[in-house]
């Protein structure tokens, strides 16, 4: 494994520091075994990678890597099967909740989750999303909302903000022409089949930790057969938004979170 520490402050003896600190027993964070060694195909700084890692970490910590089946979407995360160290099935565009329904019903002891973008889940897959939720399928949906179709070149999605520019709304999204941004997690949360609906983000270290806790909770509710759980995760598409990764996370905080406020929308009511 290659590492780099080649330039440091002149008066620091980096080798002595390394000798003292770089030891197996001092490791507080390393890459999860829930992911493969394949390099991710995502753009630098894309939130997809962070969410992949969190799912891998949760599966590792719950010791369920052998018991999870992921359903991958169409979108930038179409190659998720190369990155999750989990059994994975790809679905046609938007159909992941339908595929997950079949997989979960035939293998009810497995943890089954879909991983979907906002184009996949909230546009072409709206029907599958709503009906899987309404049937109360005992699956988990991990929903990556970056407000745009990333893979195909940054076209407007149902989640695109008003006035937000995209390749198909070059002057910004207009209500009169394109309608309002669709907040699908709030929309399905009241359905009786949904046990847990929450919106998180991965733009700061603190938010990343909260998002991980939410994914863990969703898997735990699935184990308890509580119904469908959906974890929406706000994420940047820095390429589609035409910003640097750092700018895009800042822009998300300043613009997206007003329309898509973070926090739990529905939590299970214990009987």
């Amino acid at each position, binding site marked *: 494994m*290659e590492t780099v520490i080649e330039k440091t402050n002149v008066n620091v003896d980096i080798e002595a520091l390394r000798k003292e600190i770089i030891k197996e027993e001092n490791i507080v964070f*390393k890459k999860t075994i829930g992911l493969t060694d394949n390099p991710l195909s995502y753009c630098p700084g894309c939130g997809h990678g962070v969410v992949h890692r969190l799912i891998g970490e949760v599966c590792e910590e719950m010791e369920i890597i052998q018991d999870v089946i992921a359903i991958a979407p169409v979108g930038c995360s179409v190659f998720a099967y190369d990155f999750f160290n989990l059994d994975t099935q790809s679905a046609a565009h938007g159909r992941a909740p339908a595929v997950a329904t079949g997989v979960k019903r035939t293998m009810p002891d497995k943890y089954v989750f879909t991983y979907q973008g906002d184009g996949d889940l909230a546009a072409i897959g709206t029907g599958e999303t709503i009906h899987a939720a309404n049937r109360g399928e005992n699956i988990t949906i991990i929903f990556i909302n970056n407000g745009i179709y990333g893979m195909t070149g940054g076209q407007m999605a149902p989640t695109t903000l008003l006035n937000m520019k995209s390749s198909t709304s070059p002057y910004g999204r207009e209500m009169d022409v394109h309608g309002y941004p669709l907040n699908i997690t709030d929309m399905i949360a009241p359905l009786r089949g949904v046990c847990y609906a929450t919106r998180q983000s991965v733009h700061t270290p603190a938010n990343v930790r909260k998002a991980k806790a939410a994914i863990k909770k969703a898997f735990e509710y699935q184990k308890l057969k509580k119904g469908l759980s959906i974890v929406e995760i706000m994420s940047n598409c820095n390429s589609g938004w035409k910003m640097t990764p750092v700018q895009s996370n800042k822009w998300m905080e300043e613009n997206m979170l007003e329309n898509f406020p973070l926090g739990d929308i529905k939590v299970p009511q214990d009987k």
Partner: protein
Amino acid sequence: MAKARGLVEILFDTCKGCELCVNACPFNVLQLSDQVNAKGYHPSMMVNPESCTGCASCAMVCPDSVITVYRVK
């Protein structure tokens, strides 16, 4: 209380130089290197290693899991 002491190791050729860790570090430990890696990116590296506390903020926001964090307990 003595400050916690840490260090990070960053995979040179896997890092995509997105700079999120540089921005997330509360102690300005990291910067993008002048060197170019195999992928053509300027990877992140430590420039103030003695300031690192091993808080793992950098690793939290890293999309490519290229950072390993050490802390002396």
